[in-house]
């Protein structure tokens, strides 16, 4: 059976160019960049070239890019790093952030920091006034994601960053889903997180952009790698792979986004013909590859497992949600009732998605929904 992968927000298939770029640094060029000998220096050079490549595309200085092992680590590094550095104060974030921002922030709340979770509207958008009203004299950090992983909603990070900077707060954005998929301006941003595996790069590598002149407490203390911010022997192969993935993604960003939007919109149109279904998130201001649907009377996991039996790989929301039973906090934050939030289906397109894939989904999905509804006691 042909398999159709529509879970690109969970992780992506590394491009063959990425694998090829990585391989030498996994095999022959295995030096530790901290080693003084030739092989060490060769590894250090590859790493610095990768840093420069990423910086160029992001629009930062190379020395503002710090390699880490994941988006989660980048986010934890900023949130805890600012908090530990400032020792006390008020942190603002919002309700539809990724679990790693939510849970790191909640933990800081338990350590004596004041936390505000901003509300979003029914499309998942954080309003500027909401942030403006929450700002306090002792606000040390505002963290608002660039684009949401479940519903794809894009936030106005440039304007929100400006509001944070009207006060004394630093501004962080989790761009794990957005980096390489849409243009990002660093104008009002002090920290930005990204993860390679969302962009056809390898798992196990991410980066943190940290504006020069801001210092934060490291999360991983040690040998002083990454200019003291993130110690650990560097994953050179992963870093080289991330740079290659970045280069390729930026080269085709505009055209690929347009292609995916067209496919995705045809998918949305078709799916919404199913009775008692709706689109979660913003109708237009969303990531090019994201579609997220609700279906009344049925539960998302059954939907995903039955679609899988038809060769369609999808998700109920964040991939992480398979680890707990609560309905998506993103959907309930937008005002969905718990029972409606349980019935969500996320389809996230990728480079390899085709019109034929969309057609196949539109052919299969109504029957799957139907069969689960026939089984549901809620339709009675």
């Amino acid at each position: 059976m042909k398999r159709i992968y529509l879970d690109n927000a969970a992780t992506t298939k590394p491009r063959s160019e990425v694998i090829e770029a990585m391989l030498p640094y996994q095999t022959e060029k295995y030096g530790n960049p901290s080693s003084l000998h030739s092989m060490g220096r060769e590894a250090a050079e590859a790493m610095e070239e990768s840093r420069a490549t990423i910086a160029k595309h992001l629009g930062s200085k190379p020395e503002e890019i710090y390699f880490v092992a994941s988006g989660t680590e980048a986010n934890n590094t900023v949130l805890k790093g600012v908090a530990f550095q400032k020792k006390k104060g008020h942190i603002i974030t919002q309700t539809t952030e990724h679990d790693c921002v939510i849970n790191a922030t909640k933990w800081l709340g338990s350590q004596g920091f004041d936390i505000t979770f901003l509300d979003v509207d029914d499309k998942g958008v954080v309003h500027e006034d909401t942030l403006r009203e929450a700002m306090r004299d002792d606000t040390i950090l505002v963290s608002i994601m660039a684009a949401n992983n479940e519903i794809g909603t894009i936030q106005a990070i440039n304007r929100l960053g400006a509001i944070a900077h009207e006060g004394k707060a630093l501004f962080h954005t989790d761009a794990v889903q957005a980096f390489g998929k849409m243009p990002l301006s660093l104008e009002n941003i002090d920290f930005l997180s990204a993860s390679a595996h969302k962009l056809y790069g390898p798992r196990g590598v991410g980066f943190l952009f940290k504006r020069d002149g801001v210092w934060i407490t490291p999360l991983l203390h040690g040998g002083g790698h990454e200019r003291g911010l993130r110690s650990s022997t560097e994953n050179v192969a992963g870093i080289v792979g991330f740079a290659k993935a970045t280069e390729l993604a930026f080269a085709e960003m505009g055209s690929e986004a347009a292609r995916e939007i067209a496919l995705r919109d045809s998918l949305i149109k078709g799916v919404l013909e199913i009775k008692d279904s709706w689109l979660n998130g913003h109708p237009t201001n969303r990531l090019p590859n994201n579609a997220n649907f609700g279906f009344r009377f049925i539960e998302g996991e059954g939907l995903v497992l039955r679609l899988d039996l038809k060769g369609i790989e999808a998700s109920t929301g964040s991939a992480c949600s398979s680890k707990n039973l609560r309905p998506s906090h993103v959907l309930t934050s937008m005002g969905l009732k718990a029972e409606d939030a349980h019935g969500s289906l996320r389809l996230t397109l990728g480079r390899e998605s085709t019109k034929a894939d969309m057609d196949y989904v539109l052919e299969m999905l109504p029957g799957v929904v139907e069969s689960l509804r026939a089984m549901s006691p809620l339709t009675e």
Partner: protein
Amino acid sequence: MAMMYSKKVMEHMESPKNVGSIENADGVGKVGNPVCGDVMSMFIKVENGIITDIKFKTYGCGAAIATSSMMTEMVKGKTIGEAEKITKDQLAKELDGLPNIKLHCSVLAVDALHKAIADYKGKHK
């Protein structure tokens, strides 16, 4: 650790047995809450103390559907007394195990059956 369903669970998920409702059932039990993501209804037909037919409707995850389906299979043809003795552990075992986080689904299936039996007993006192 990631959640993994056994092959047995997936089979029941793919083709659940005894889906539906029974008109004029001798006993009906409905448990769960859509807010929590699981609702199960069980319908039984009883003749001479034996459960001759049983059907279910379930709103819920793969484990909820599979445990409902497995329960109906195990119960059909058994006496009320035998059926009442089926435990959540037996159910999970027959399904070659359930992920820890999903064990509550087997509780739900047991509860739904007990409620249907109680309903039957209440009506036939």
